[in-house]
């Protein structure tokens, strides 16, 4: 079966990103497909490469990036939500006149249409939030 996953909260502060990650891993382990993981609201904060969590704790950005690389997952950060919260790729940084970017490997910034498309293409859409 084909899943779409929505993550509405940032890493660490609330458990949504952890739960979504473990759900995604379990779905893949059962042979299901993940059409897309869409990061909305504060969820966009999962996609910054600037985090340095304590060494004895999990690194959620890295876990997502690695899962994406291993399973060719499509990790999409919502552009409108990202602008409000300061998540930029090189392209956006240039367009907005910012002096740097912070997007993490394996994440891409795109529009809300990608969320609707995930709803259309996936057999089940599962939302993780606050």
């Amino acid at each position: 079966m084909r899943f779409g996953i929505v993550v509405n909260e940032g890493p660490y502060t609330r458990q949504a990103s952890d739960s979504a990650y473990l759900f995604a891993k379990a779905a893949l382990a059962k042979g299901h497909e993940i059409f897309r993981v869409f990061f909305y609201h504060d969820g966009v904060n999962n996609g910054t490469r600037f985090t340095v969590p304590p060494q004895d704790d999990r690194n959620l950005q890295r876990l997502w990036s690695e899962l994406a690389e291993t399973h060719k997952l499509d990790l999409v950060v919502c552009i409108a939500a990202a602008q409000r919260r300061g998540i930029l790729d090189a392209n956006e940084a240039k367009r907005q006149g910012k002096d740097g970017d912070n997007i993490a490997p394996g994440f891409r910034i795109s529009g809300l249409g990608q969320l609707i498309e995930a709803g259309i293409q996936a057999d089940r859409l599962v939302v993780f939030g606050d």
Partner: protein
Amino acid sequence: MSEQANRKKFLYVNRRAPYGTIYALESLEVVLIGAAFEQDVSLAFIDDGVYQLVAGQDTAGVGMKNFSKTYRALGDYEVRKLYVERESLAERGLTVEDLMPITYEDEDDDYAEKPSIHLTDRSEMARLIAEQDVILSF
């Protein structure tokens, strides 16, 4: 038929008051973008979500953008089914008269102006949820 096959029933569930959190605003942004995909769209307003539709919102004092007028424009985006839970209103001391009038023009009925807001009992709301293909919660 092939168009119909790709047409899914989308329900947006709104359960929070506006302004205290951004969910109401960012939910509206999804609904507006989603309109271009020509799905079968419904919005549910449950619990404090009914406050999103209350008339007379004035955000000057909190310094935030007042996005309440956008709900009135939903008809132009073919979003015409706004289900407001009757019990949620009553528990909060609200009636349908406290809500903004939200209407659409029905092109199949000589562009008559018709209400988009449907007062819905809790049990009907449960049935509405049970009919959906995709549920986006905010």
